[in-house]
């Protein structure tokens, strides 16, 4: 159980939260925009880390070698790129975007696994 924190510490933690740009751009106009409104408050560090971990976990589930590697790489590079974002509204919109993209990735994991080819990619076969 953590000792109680002062208000100053809480706001400092918020400032330190890992900023990121979503690796996936926003979806087409048919996606509801309500997510933007609900994300008006900046996400906490824990939420951001949780999103990062979810994206990486989802990446490992792809059956296609190239897509798997791309999602993993783009997530890490995307989060690293936006380490320095400080404006709370851009953090919030990026977080909402990231959450949208996590949903896209989860759906696509299912689609790719339904049609996975029976033969593996040569990169996945351990060669002598």
């Amino acid at each position, binding site marked *: 159980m953590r000792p109680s924190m002062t208000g100053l510490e809480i706001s400092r933690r918020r400032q330190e939260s890992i900023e990121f740009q979503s690796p996936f751009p926003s979806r087409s106009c048919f996606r509801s925009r309500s997510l933007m409104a609900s994300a008006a408050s900046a996400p906490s560090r824990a939420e951001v880390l949780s999103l990062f971990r979810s994206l990486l976990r989802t990446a490992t589930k792809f059956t296609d070698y190239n897509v798997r590697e791309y999602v993993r790489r783009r997530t890490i590079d995307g989060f690293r790129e936006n380490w320095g974002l400080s404006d709370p509204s851009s953090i919030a919109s990026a977080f909402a975007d990231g959450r949208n993209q996590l949903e896209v990735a989860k759906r696509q994991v299912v689609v790719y696994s339904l049609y996975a080819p029976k033969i*593996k990619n040569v990169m996945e076969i351990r060669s002598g």
Partner: protein
Amino acid sequence: MAAAKHLSLLRRAIPAGRFLSTATAAVVDPPPPMVVEDDVISMKGVRISGRPLYLDMQATSPVDPRVLDAMLPFYLSRYGNPHSRTHFYGWESDAAVETARAQVAALVGANPKEIFFTSGATESNNISVKGVMHFYRDKKRHVVTTQTEHKCVLDSCRHLQQEGFDVTYLPVRPDGLVDLDRLAASIRPDTGLVSVMAVNNEIGVVQPLEEIGRICKEKGVPFHTDAAQALGKIPVDVEKMGIGLMSLSGHKIYGPKGVGALYLRRRPRVRVEPQMSGGGQERGIRSGTVPTPLVVGMGAACEIAMKEMEYDGRRIAALQERLLNGIRSRLDGVVINGSVEHRYAGNLNLSFAYVEGESLLMGLKEVAVSSGSACTSASLEPSYVLRALGVDEDMAHTSIRFGIGRFTTEAEIDRAIELTVNQVEKLREMSPLYEMVKEGIDIKSIQWAQH
């Protein structure tokens, strides 16, 4: 009497003009399907242990999962025809098409009203070349293009020649770039179109579009460019480059196959004669139902490309360096076809000296690459693009085109280097020509004895 009846029955059963032969008719068997046993694929006489790693991005690119996600709803529940004005299905489909149009327009700096969806860059090229010249056929009888254009442009020009138009096929310099002075000199008062592709699909050379656009604007000639390989990879701006018509392709930017777009400038207006007659869809430029899922996919791909262009560009340039250094550090006699400075990084066309092309490809079956020559087809002619560059026949035969893309990994590049270097070394070891070269004999000076 009975025999005659039988004969007449027989005659009716057999189509007129055919006689009954006792030999069994030659049945053409369909090609044997792919055989998979114990995780080894056997196809066309080749056995490979798994799906090859893909390094042929100029031929086509894999569909990005984000694009697929945008497309699927339009195959499942939102299946309306965008031209249906009377119900919700049509309205939502139309809204999706217009969104996609705006996404494509944003990538090239155009107005959405200037984008028309077609079935691909080939159709867009046809509309551009034949459509423009047919529209202005009374006043304009001349077309200027280059020798390294895509087959669809060259074939359209040949078609125009048969109709009586004049076509100038400009030669290119050995580095693949077009000579701007020759271009300016070849434009006549009756020139109706100048067509130069932005990025060449075989050698990856990037033409100086801004300069060409400026020349065409001065002379008042519409400038058409085939930007199928350039879209989403290098920044394309129709205003800065003075482009009048542009052909775009969906499946080269991680979008679906079967869709493309045509950019037609509105100010000053470029008019074309439509090649597809029908209900006047796409403002009469291209009739036919607009395929909503494909168009939505192309729009999504363009939006993604706009956001990822810088990241992908950096990454692909680094991968190209890695590939080139990896091969060059272990092999000599490696020549890059086309200019090194004015090149799109994702296209690397290499020729390996003293190696026979067909055998090189046979050994590279675990890497999906393309060759510069047509030696995989029936004719043994080297590619016309390499011939236009002035590459020797033997070097043209051994050219390999590596295509690097958004999804290519470092591990794939390393594996490709391994496989290529091993195969080339193996072939050179067997090659008597290479032995002579190593001893210092100049091959070109050899007098081959005739028996």
